[in-house]
């Protein structure tokens, strides 16, 4: 239990909060999905640091689940949502 790791997790949290601007104004749909993926990785890092900072090693397992399921949303998006819109209006992705 050390407060230094909690400070590191606290530094990483505004990175998530400011990345939200890209979701709000991203021109293509892939930009928004990429930001969600960055959030996933940031969340894994925050969980790892917080697990040491709060003295609960259980958080490693939660980070493991996050890392396992990180690609699922992006894969679904690319394979289903984005592929479909390319057939309808070519080169003009869903906004």
């Amino acid at each position, binding site marked *: 239990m050390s407060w230094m790791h909690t400070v590191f997790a606290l530094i990483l949290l505004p990175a998530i909060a400011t990345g939200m601007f890209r979701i709000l104004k991203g021109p293509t749909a892939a930009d928004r999905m990429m930001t969600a993926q960055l959030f996933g990785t940031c969340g894994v*890092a925050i969980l790892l640091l917080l697990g040491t900072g709060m003295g609960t090693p259980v958080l490693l397992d939660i980070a493991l689940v996050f890392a396992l399921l990180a690609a699922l949303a992006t894969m679904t998006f690319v394979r289903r949502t984005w592929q479909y819109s390319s057939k309808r209006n070519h080169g003009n992705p869903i906004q």
Partner: protein
Amino acid sequence: MEILYNSGTLLIILGLPFFLSGTVGLIRFPDIYTRLHALTKADNVGLGCIVCGLALQSASWAVTAKLLLIWLLVLIASSASCHLIARSAMQKNIQPWTRP
């Protein structure tokens, strides 16, 4: 032991700017490919530095193995999905940004 702990802290501090610059790059860069570039740096190197730092500070080998497994999973997931996004963007004729 003290040297290991301090070098672990140093590695974590080294990893934090990658995440912050990844976020800044995601906001500031003009194009989907350049944003992808910023994102992968945060994913691979930033999380790698943090995982290595925490592994140096960890007490047992099981925790170290779990940390490395997390990093490996994130590496696979991020590279696969970033490759998919880039290929799909190329197929949709999104032109890369060039300096005007």
